[in-house]
């Protein structure tokens, strides 16, 4: 039915938003009046308010927002903690290594070394607090510079960058021979 469809649409909007969404915005998007939208949001919030339910719809000053039921905070934390301990991807390791040995470096430098776009990997590493911004390069476009963090040292189990393995001359010789 039409009402069921509208309810579903509101549910989808709240889910995808992440932030609070105002009643006006929802009314406008669905071409319904404010009062109806408000009533439907209220109903939806009630529907989500079940015992032990994982998701809640809370009313905030500027609208409605979906969020996890605080009851499950410990479980959520446990699950996401595990994710934060999962091994890094090869791409992440390579980017980290290139930054670690050449810091501070721009994204362009890392991409030149690896030969592919590294935007997503770099922002992932910044979110993981393994890389951080280190000002800008005084060049056209003033590109951001990146360096490794204290968390990076901790994850590696070293106390300073000087403990990084020396890049050996051998490698250079090898490369010359290969080239």
């Amino acid at each position, binding site marked *: 039915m039409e009402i069921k469809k509208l309810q579903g649409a509101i549910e989808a909007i709240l889910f*995808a938003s992440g932030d609070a969404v105002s009643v006006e915005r929802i009314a406008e998007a669905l071409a319904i009046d404010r009062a109806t939208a408000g009533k439907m949001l209220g109903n939806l919030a009630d529907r989500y308010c079940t015992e032990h339910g994982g998701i809640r719809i809370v009313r905030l000053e500027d609208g409605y927002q979906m969020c996890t039921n605080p009851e499950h905070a410990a479980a959520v934390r446990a699950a996401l903690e595990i994710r*934060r301990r999962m091994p890094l991807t090869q791409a992440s*390791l390579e980017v980290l290594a290139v930054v670690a040995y050449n810091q501070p470096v721009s994204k362009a430098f890392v991409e030149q*070394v690896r030969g592919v776009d590294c935007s997503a990997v770099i922002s992932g590493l910044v979110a993981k607090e393994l890389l951080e911004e280190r000002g800008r390069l005084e060049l056209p476009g003033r590109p951001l510079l990146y360096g490794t963090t204290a968390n990076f040292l901790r994850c590696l189990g070293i106390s300073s960058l000087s403990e*990084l393995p020396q890049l050996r001359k051998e490698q250079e010789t090898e490369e010359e021979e290969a080239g």
Partner: protein
Amino acid sequence: MMDKICYKLETFEGPLDLLLALIAKNKLDIFNIQITELVDQYLEQLAAMRERRMDVTSEFLEMAARLIYLKTVSLLPKHEETERLKCELTGQLIEYQSCKRAAAQLGERFSFDSYTRGPEKMLPDRRYHGHFTLKELYAAYLSAAGRGKRFLPPPQEAFSAIVSHRIVSVSSRIIYVLRRLRLRTEQRYEALFDGIHNHSERVATFLAVLELIKGGRIALNGDQNPKVKLLNGGGKHGD
């Protein structure tokens, strides 16, 4: 210019390269082409060309050989080999055809209409809590640098070989050869190269000798251990 060999088949009429181009562009299915018919016409054309004493390019010959082999095999009861050869002929093209077909299938199903959300904002801590080793990091660096090396600007040293490379001019070696011969008008040809290890210098010296022989200013005699002799005092011919 050679006339293109044209084929008249049930589903196609035109030269072979057009036929292949059409198959490649998925305009024509190779399975609908009668290879035997194609071979007959090809051989006919080939015979006609021979009569007219036209050059038959290696490309055509190669194609003909493949097609004839296909035909002979198809006459034998072993049909598997025919199929295998048919595949060989069309392998790459079919692969691309099926790629296009797969692309079309994916395209029909593909949709960006389902939306996901980022992680909940209540949990801003995305800090990495795992561990990795120095060895892994070092290996990753070698891996990354090994690949990207060619994308980096070449180091200064890479140019030095080119820039500092001595290009020896032939004229400078002509002067060198003449000077030596003026000191001793006849000497071993090989002696001219004594002490020269530089590749460019050796080549230039050789070219200088040729140039001087051509100009009639020196002569080279003897099969084994040839000797170079200064002619006419080394002056230009006719001087």
